[in-house]
């Protein structure tokens, strides 16, 4: 029983990583109606920028804010320079563009900062949280930030003109243009925000998994899975999805005899696909009725 609760707690702690990344995934999906395969690498690059800033003596929160600004502008720049010219191209060509971007960022980071793992500081400390050794103060802080981010996103998309405009631009671009929304800039803005949220995710994840160019490879798969499970249109779903995937995975690894440990990722993914087969829009996603 103790192992059971421990694994759930550990699952929540790891799930916070996935939830954070899933939020960034949902953000970009809201903006461009697609998954961005380079999202993890963009987050990794931002995290390296903040690390570099701290290396030259900028205090944590200063580096944090500067990195957010950098990521926001960087995200917009990437959209304007690389993806705006592809607006008219087929969607699959855009996906190829994401893959190209992935390769460029990963390889450049490796050349600039090497592949050795680097320690990354946390503002929350890493002592046991509320006496539980399973969740450290850092992980508790991470959950807190994720929830705050979730609330902020919820209000942004639900109650601000900008957020509503962005959703409109992504889901019904033509109608959005008709009501006077500059859809092209909405997309750029979406890239900027997704990039900034990704940067937060990266800076929170790095103290746990260590900073290195390949640090987001595994995280992104889980982030996608979490976002899809929760429903790509729902920030709330993405966070719940993140925690569920974390817990799922740990329980599968601990309790399924024989293959459980070796196959915990495949089992978690199979479960998600089963959920999708029953609920194609994810647990909390809104259902879209298709017409001819």
């Amino acid at each position, binding site marked *: 029983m103790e192992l059971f609760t421990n694994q759930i707690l550990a699952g929540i702690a790891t799930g916070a990583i996935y939830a954070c990344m899933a939020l960034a995934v949902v953000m970009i*999906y809201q903006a461009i109606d*697609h*998954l961005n395969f380079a999202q993890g690498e963009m987050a990794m690059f931002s995290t390296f920028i903040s690390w570099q800033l701290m290396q030259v003596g900028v205090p944590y929160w200063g580096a944090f804010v500067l990195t957010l600004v950098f990521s926001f502008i960087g995200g917009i720049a990437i959209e304007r320079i*690389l993806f705006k010219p*592809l607006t*008219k*191209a*087929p*969607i*699959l*060509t855009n*996906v*190829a*563009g994401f*893959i*190209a*971007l*992935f*390769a*460029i960022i990963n*390889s*450049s980071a*490796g*050349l600039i900062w090497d592949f050795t793992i680097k320690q990354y500081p946390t503002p929350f400390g890493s002592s046991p949280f509320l006496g539980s050794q399973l969740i450290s103060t850092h992980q508790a802080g991470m959950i807190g930030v994720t929830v705050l981010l979730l609330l902020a996103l*919820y209000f942004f*998309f*639900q109650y601000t003109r900008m957020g509503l405009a962005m959703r409109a631009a992504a*889901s*019904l671009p033509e109608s959005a243009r008709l009501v006077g929304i500059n859809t092209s800039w909405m997309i750029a803005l979406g890239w900027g925000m997704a990039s900034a949220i990704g940067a937060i995710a990266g800076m929170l994840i790095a103290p746990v998994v260590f900073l290195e160019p390949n640090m987001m490879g595994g995280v992104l*798969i889980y982030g*996608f*899975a979490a976002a*899809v499970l929760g429903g*790509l*249109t*729902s*920030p*709330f779903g993405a966070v719940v999805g993140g925690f569920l995937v974390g817990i799922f995975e740990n329980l599968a690894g601990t309790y399924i005899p*024989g*293959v459980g440990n*070796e*196959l915990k*990722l*495949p089992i978690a*993914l*199979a479960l*998600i*696909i*089963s959920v*999708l*087969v029953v609920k*194609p829009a994810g647990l*909390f996603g*809104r*259902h*879209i*009725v*298709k*017409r*001819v």
Partner: protein
Amino acid sequence: MSAIENVAPEDQPVEAVPKRAMTIGSGTSFVVLLLLLIVPLFAKNFIIFQLTMLLIYGLAVLALNILTGGSGQFSLGQSAFYAVGAYTTAVLMEHLNINYALTLPIAGLVCFAFGFLFGQPALRLSGVYLALATFALATAMPQLLKLNFLEHWTGGVQGLVVTKPDAPFGLPMSQDMWLYYFTLAITLAIYIFSVNLLRSRSGRAFMAIRDNEIAASAMGVDVALYKTLAFGVSAGITGVAGGLGAIAVQFVAPDSYTITLAISLFLGMVVGGVGWLPGSIIGSAFIIFVPNIAEGISKGLSGAVFGVLLFLIIFLVPHGARQIAIVGQQLIGKLRKN
């Protein structure tokens, strides 16, 4: 977010390619075939090996093209079918001593069944959801191949070494050259089969589903059957390619069939032109040669150079090599008129 049901026009992720535009004229085909037949006679064994790999990846890209370009379903999991085909061939050859040529149809059938079954749950998914499901399959495959209880057959993490066949009937050619012509024959057979498939009733059903699933179903197309069938056929061809790959490389291991392979095949399809079958070979050339070019430009930044080259290609020809072919045809047409 909200529970309000949104109504959206149906996604059409893959643009409609008319079926005649999916192939090339007989004159061009003849020239390409002649080149494929003659070039190896004057090339070093290493080049022949590269050409063999070109055909093999070409087949795998073709298979993906049938699935995506034909039926509009998106897959990032082709490496899984490729792996199953490769392991089927390797295990049959090395453990059961079955002739290499006989293992290929078996690999094809096994993968057809696997793809058909995978197509069942995938039916309910589309767009990014299907992408995730197939992505999951590709990620899981190397882990499945390593499983302890399969280790006796698969060799576990160590993989299996495959023996390369000699040319039969005492033909005076090297193993590499024999394997090349053998692969070429199979590739041609599958290419002709694919072209005819897409021109047939089934092919029209695929394309109707691709262009508008709801309309297709209203017209009486059995959407479920044809979508799973497309998965099956695509997986089957990929499996044959995997089997050939195992023989050519003489080795199978979990590390050979990671998500990277699935992504490469996907890129090959985009570069060749989605839905344009002859583009598959151009896409395959991209997979094999562009990383080598990138590496030649810079070792430390080979990944970045590769990314930049890929961006250049999709900026210049967002519809892939098909675009060049169309422009070329129009030019020839104009010249003829003048």
